[in-house]
């Protein structure tokens, strides 16, 4: 066992990749500043020099295009934004260029770029520092989208993303940065498009991603005690998505709850429910369920975010309802931690 933090795993992943391939560059606003993007880029400039590791102008759209252009001549770029929301300024380059170039030029080009986007939550992050837009990115043909939830996946998926010949949107949840996990040394890779079956079970399949995986595990432990055996699937990769494993699990359990850190309408969870209903209608023992964030922006106030996020309690209640479990004090099931808006004592703000 070698326990390291998620943020350290990211840093290791970049280091290992850059060590093994001189064509890799790494940039983003804050990459070389004293805080080094939540410590994920710490020490990189010292190791690899300022030609390969650099801070950048606050020009999200152009910098994406610059990464694309460089990639046409053999450079592999890792670009990071401290919040996903800033990257919305770069949709033209991402959607019209990175995602299309290989296809629309008849295979003449490949665009091996990795875009790390960090998703915020709570502690007043509010409407424009907290968006989980994986469904947006997954909607676009030509993009790959990953959302690691463990330190090991963070490192191995990042390395795979960097060496993938396609543009990959790498979504990192800020609340995971301090989580600990066993991470192998060296240049480890994980196949993009493979999920993790974190827990085997027979009664219901719970699908989750990113930070919600932690909540789903908590819920499944509680449900175990209540006699409900949950199979927990951490998607890890949003696009391509591991349909084989999802279908295999739902065939076994006959029930599904798809959870999503994003807004409900047109969510990844919605897509999973649609596909499962189409492909496995006959195998379902209960109506499929979805649990995603409400279709409203995340409010800022400490008061307004109480009970706002979906969590272990919501997941447990949904599952209990399928099995007609009657519980007296439903709202007491796995209550939100106090305070509700931080991932742990380590987080003191501001972002």
């Amino acid at each position: 066992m070698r326990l390291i933090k998620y943020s350290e795993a990211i840093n290791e992943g970049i280091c290992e990749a850059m060590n093994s391939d001189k064509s890799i560059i790494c940039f983003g606003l804050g990459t070389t500043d004293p805080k080094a993007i939540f410590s994920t880029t710490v020490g990189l400039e010292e190791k690899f020099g300022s030609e390969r590791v650099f801070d950048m102008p606050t020009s999200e759209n152009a910098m994406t295009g610059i990464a694309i252009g460089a990639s046409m001549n053999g450079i592999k770029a890792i670009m990071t934004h401290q919040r996903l929301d800033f990257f919305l300024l770069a949709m033209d380059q991402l959607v019209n260029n990175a995602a299309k170039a290989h296809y629309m030029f008849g295979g003449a080009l490949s665009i091996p770029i990795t875009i790390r986007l960090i998703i915020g939550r709570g502690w007043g992050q509010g409407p424009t520092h907290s968006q989980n837009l994986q469904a947006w990115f997954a909607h676009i043909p030509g993009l790959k989208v990953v959302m690691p939830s463990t330190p090991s996946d963070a490192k191995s998926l990042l390395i795979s993303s960097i060496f993938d010949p396609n543009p990959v949107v790498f979504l990192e949840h800020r609340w995971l940065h301090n989580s600990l996990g066993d991470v192998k040394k060296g240049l480890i890779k994980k196949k993009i498009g493979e999920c993790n079956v974190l827990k085997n079970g027979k009664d219901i399949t719970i699908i989750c991603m990113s930070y919600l995986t932690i909540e789903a595990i908590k819920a499944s432990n509680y449900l175990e005690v209540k006699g409900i055996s949950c199979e927990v699937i951490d998607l890890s990769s949003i696009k391509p998505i591991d349909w084989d494993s999802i279908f295999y699990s739902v065939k076994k359990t006959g029930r599904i709850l798809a959870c999503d850190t994003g807004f409900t309408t047109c969510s990844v969870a919605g897509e999973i429910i649609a596909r499962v209903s189409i492909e496995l209608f006959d195998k379902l023992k209960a109506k499929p369920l979805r649990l995603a964030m409400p279709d409203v922006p995340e409010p800022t106030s400490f008061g307004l975010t109480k009970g706002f996020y979906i969590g272990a309690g919501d997941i447990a209640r949904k599952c209990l309802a399928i099995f007609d479990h009657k519980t007296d004090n439903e709202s007491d099931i796995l209550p939100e931690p106090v305070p509700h808006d931080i991932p742990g004592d380590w987080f003191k703000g501001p972002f």
Partner: protein
Amino acid sequence: MEESIDKKKLLKTMMRIRAVEEKIAKEYSQQKMRCPTHLSIGQEAVPSAISFCINKNDFAVSTHRGHAHYLAKGGDLKAMIAEIYGKETGCSKGKGGSMHLIDTNVGFMGTSAIVGNSIPVGVGLALSCKLKKSDQISVVYLGDGAVEEGVFYESLNFAILKNLRVLFVCENNLYSVYSSLDVRQPKHRKIVSIAKGIGAKAEQCDGNNIEECLKVCTYAISTMRKEGGPFFIEFATYRHREHCGPNFDNDIGYRTLKEFETWKLKDPISNYQNRLLKEGSCSKKDFQYFAKEIDDEIEEAFEFAENSNFPLKSEAFKGVYS
């Protein structure tokens, strides 16, 4: 007489681009070239001049109006025509059309249908050259509309910051589709002054006078090769035909016939021909000879495109990922 040979070649480069575009215009109504097509007729001098100052391994990226840039960089003519016809032999295998041309064999790294979209790509290519310690340059073709996009400012800023060898070639033809400069940019501000304001070396040039274009480009490129850093040139130019399609559109009321005729008198090709005749460095016979040679090549390219197959329908579902 080496100089006169260059002049002939310069003229022929322009004549070839013009003839290709005229042929597309002539055949377009047959409905076989079924994609939006933006012709460069009237704007041939700038890319022709640039093609004389750069090497095959230098890079170029361009816009929706990119035929001339592709051809001047040495892009394969047959593959371009086949692409406009949507054929499997097209440079983008029928997936791109007129607005998505590419020929990586000659460093022509693609055109884009989105205004300003290829600007940062050209800057990224220049960044890759710097990382690889190469003195290749990257040519970014853009129009007067693109300088209104935020990405233009962002890209030029980065090129200056990192001292990248990017030649920004702004072909100011006064219109973004049918919207004139007056409704888009302040009256007394020159585009070149924006580039200077951001901190680039920048020049203005008559885009209808190919020898002047050649002079300015030669200076800009030799400066870039020597000192590094970008250079911005604003060329005054004018498209003779409609924004998109093969026709003239002076009747629809967004520009006056008088304006059109004034610019037509500045036509880069006929003026250069007259000049070469006057100088005695070319004869009318030379022109006819060039035209014949060019026409034969173009006929062959169109025949190639017509005779090529459409891609298999199943190809539509392939090549999304590499």
